């Protein structure tokens, strides 16, 4: 398994650039108290699970954080219907795949994230959808 550093330090990129979500409109829940919407984290790693479910599709990923520590994240995406309209399917990812995930990290130090986009091993880039 190849885990590579991304962004500023090589393996892990943490960008506090004030990048905003395209729309504040949320279907299932607000993000304000759960995720840091002003921070983007990008991790290239290995998929540990891909759960095609509602209210949110879930992606488990194992990678290396900014401190060089191997760890796991659990990323939430939109609902299946919204993702399906944006090119995702239940077969888009599977355990063992290499993927690069960009997400808003969870607050409170939790290893969770709110998906912004995923870049698959074949180079395809899939967004999370502007509305959750």
């Amino acid at each position, binding site marked *: 398994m190849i885990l590579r550093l991304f962004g500023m330090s090589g393996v892990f990129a943490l960008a506090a650039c004030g990048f905003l979500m395209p*729309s504040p*409109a*949320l*279907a*299932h*829940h*607000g993000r*304000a*108290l*759960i995720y840091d919407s002003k921070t983007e984290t990008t991790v290239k790693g290995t998929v540990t699970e891909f759960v095609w*479910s*509602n*209210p*949110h599709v*879930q992606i488990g990923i194992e990678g290396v954080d900014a401190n060089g520590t191997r760890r796991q994240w*659990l990323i*939430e995406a939109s*609902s*299946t*219907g*919204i993702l*399906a*309209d944006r090119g995702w399917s239940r077969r888009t990812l599977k355990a063992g795949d290499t993927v690069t995930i960009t997400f808003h990290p*969870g607050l409170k130090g*939790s290893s*969770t994230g709110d998906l912004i986009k995923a870049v698959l091993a074949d180079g395809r880039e899939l967004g999370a959808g502007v*509305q*959750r």
Partner: protein
Amino acid sequence: MRSRFLIALVGLLGTVAFISACSSRPAVPAAPQHPDISGVWLGGGKSSWSSTRAKPGTEPDIPYTAWALERMKGQRPGSGSESDFENTTDPALKYADPLGFPRQYQHPLKFKIVQTDDTIYQLWEWNKAWRQIPLNKPHSEDPDISWYGESVGKWEGNTLIVDSVGFKDSTWLDGVGHPHSEELHVIERIQRVDPATLQIDFTFEDPVAYTHAWTSQHTFKLVPGGKMTEVVTTMSDELHYRERFLKQKPPVPIRR
């Protein structure tokens, strides 16, 4: 001789047919041509029917009664400026209740309109909800109380007017928790304002919750060839999500 007789007969029959067609019997009126609003539509997510971003309970465009303000006390919506998703009291999250109507319109998933001469059907992706709108029919004498209410409709020019009553008062009017009673009366004016846009103007009347009628608007874009998917969330799904992302222990056994 015989051919002359046949020619005369054909001529006579033709004349009779012509006279018959021109008789005083009234012509059957052409069926009225109503706008085509069928298709798959998608609106942006919306959490409040207020046109302002003021804190719920203080919006100048919503004429609350004391009953409504009291009912909102202690409510914790899962979205909007005052959201507290982890500890929400939103019945659609806490109990996985149906969104109900008109909140169903606020979910940013598609809905399909199937249009017939006597009934309009609306099919939503979110939790596979649907409603039927009989045209040119009165409401029931004593409408049942239900999640999605009872709707009837009629065309006025290019506008479909939908009149709905009989709503279960446990649902929220929208995602930020505006309340309503069983007296809620919703009037929709639905127009296809251009080939790709459906506009719905809402009027909310509820003498228990609001001192007078108030309005809101939502627009939807056509999704050509839009495929309707199944997006169902159950109580188990919600609790499983909360267990994983919020570290909340499920209070009841859940499907895993």
